[in-house]
């Protein structure tokens, strides 16, 4: 299944590895921050409402 990449295998595989890793980090950080800010905003809104 794995294609024969010949003498350039290292270059091709490292390109894919770096790209996939960078995109994965970007997605994970974006989702984590989104969830954290959403939760914090809910807490602040609840606090503000309870303070009148």
């Amino acid at each position: 299944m794995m294609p024969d990449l010949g003498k350039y295998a290292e270059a091709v595989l490292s390109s894919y590895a770096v790209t996939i890793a960078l995109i994965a980090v970007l997605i994970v950080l974006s989702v984590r921050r989104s969830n954290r800010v959403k939760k914090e905003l809910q807490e602040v809104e609840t606090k503000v409402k309870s303070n009148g």
Partner: protein
Amino acid sequence: MNLNALWEYANPKKFIQTTDRFLPWFAGLAAVTLVGGLIWGFFFTPEDFRQGSTVKIIYLHVPSALMAINAWLMMLITSLIWIVRRHHVSALAARAAAPVGMVMTVIALVTGAIWGQPMWGTWWAWDPRLTSFLILFLFYLGYIALWEAIENDDTAADLTSILCLVGSVFALLSRYAVNFWNQGLHQGASLSLDKEENVADVFWYPLLVCMAGFVFLFIALVLMRTRTEIRARRMRALLARERMGA
């Protein structure tokens, strides 16, 4: 079509309500096209007669370079909207797009260097396109740092918008550098409407799918991050109001 209706989406609440519906679709499309395109390109395309298997790097390098430039152009448009119409969502959308554009620039630079080593015999050359891309990366860094450095959101939006206008020169240069200067190592554009100049169909179709994948990924991430920035801004405003009331 009433173009004025578009300004409704500058309302943060309306923006969040609307993107609630669209975000899962863009995320799904990004996953399908990106994974599909990369599998097609990596496993099911032949070697190039000159570049050998390094031609497979095209599926990462070209779409990321495309998005690195277009992300900045999107930031330029939203920054101009902020300057002219003072809609907060547009300034926050520009802020949300910057880290995504910066990652795309890094991917383009790294994959270009990895491809350049075996093909040109060097990781880096002070070639017009490579250099303008490096400067674009530095502009992304500066833009993100400026947003972080200024506490007042409106002042930050004003100053980063001006920086974005200045940086647009390099975004355009990085796109057209190969046309402006007939020197340097970087070859001409891989994509062309002229069938003779465009890459062969066997590479072109999976590349098209990968480009669509990067575009959908960019849209999904920018929508999600803009929603986060809107919420973060509201939180800062509520906390500031509470501090003033205390």
